[in-house]
């Protein structure tokens, strides 16, 4: 899991990229707390062949990245 809550862009993308490069997970959960970060992480995930699902709760976003 990548917990990037409280961090502003581009840090969340950098953290997700690090995790993807290191462990090549088939599924990854990412927590962020800004819509911009959801958009940026989604763009990154799509470019790496992941599908993305987003659940919003109390201003926080739980993103599930699944390898296609």
């Amino acid at each position, binding site marked *: 899991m990548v917990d990037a809550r409280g961090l502003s862009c581009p840090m969340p993308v*950098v953290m997700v990229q690090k995790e993807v490069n290191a462990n090549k997970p088939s599924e990854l959960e990412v927590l962020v707390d800004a819509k*911009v970060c959801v958009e940026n*992480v989604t763009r990154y995930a799509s470019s790496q062949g992941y599908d993305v699902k987003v659940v919003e709760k109390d201003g926080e976003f739980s993103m599930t990245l699944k390898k296609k």
Partner: protein
Amino acid sequence: MDDIKLTKLANCAGCGAKVGAGVLASLLEDLQVHNDPNLLVGFDKSDDASVYKVTDELALVQTVDFFPPIADDPFTFGAIAATNALSDVYAMGGEPKLALNIMAVPKDMPKDAIHEILKGGYSKVYEAGALITGGHSILDDEPKYGLSVTGFVHPDKLIRNIGAKPGDVLFLTKPIGMGIITTAAKVDMVSKETYDYALKLMMTLNKNARDIMVKYDVHACTDVTGFGLLGHASEMATGSDVELHIDVDSIDLLSEALELATIGILPEGMYRNRDFAEKYVDPGDCILAKQDMLYDPQTSGGLLIAVDSKDADAFYDELKNNVPSAQRIGVVKEKMGDKYIYIH
């Protein structure tokens, strides 16, 4: 002084710190506006500067622009902020004459660094042939720098961001992608070569573009800054009540910025610009990463110019050796559809 990393002291980089166009419009709502017959340009059409006619041969152009650090090196930051502030006068076809410093500095900022910011600013003001005659400084947690600039223009030669006519050809004078590059630089994701090139672009005055533009039949011009190419283009299109047809392949997109856009290294300002302008835009088949670049907030970007078609070839010939990147990016058409900008 080499230890100073100015961008670490800033929350938003350069023109990315700009309040979004949509938010700005709502902030200005209901404010009483006084008129004067000699006020040629106020803020009714979101133009780049205000213009006041003094005599039949002379009008004052007045503008202000400042922002937090866009570069780590103080001299470079000062030079970019000044270049960006002077640009508003050039975009109206004017010549800058007087400038005042606007500055905010943290209490503990080294004097040398502050001095370097000012030196950078002065260097660009003098290059523009203008004078710095004073300024105002305050203490603040985050450094900020810019200029208030006064210039002159002949009232009949004034160029606004509206007035584009069907048949006009659209030109752009600098590459696009500076917002993405400076965002990526914060996390060391950009090559030194591209970063240095972006800084050089941001330090390049729009003076040459202006000096060429005033010799031709130009109907509209704006500088491309915080609202991104499509934000500023939509102000031109809606204000002129025309359609802009833009060929995305003819736009000089910084290649590294396009790679970064693809993987989501995008500044928050890009999304603000998209929120404001996308209702005016038909993106066609343009891929998402390229669309994002067209909304990328530029700091000290180039001029977007609508030139009468009879002058387009001669204008382009002169432009191409005198600006960082002369691009013929599209045409203006009569308003027919429900959008104002069509990407092809």
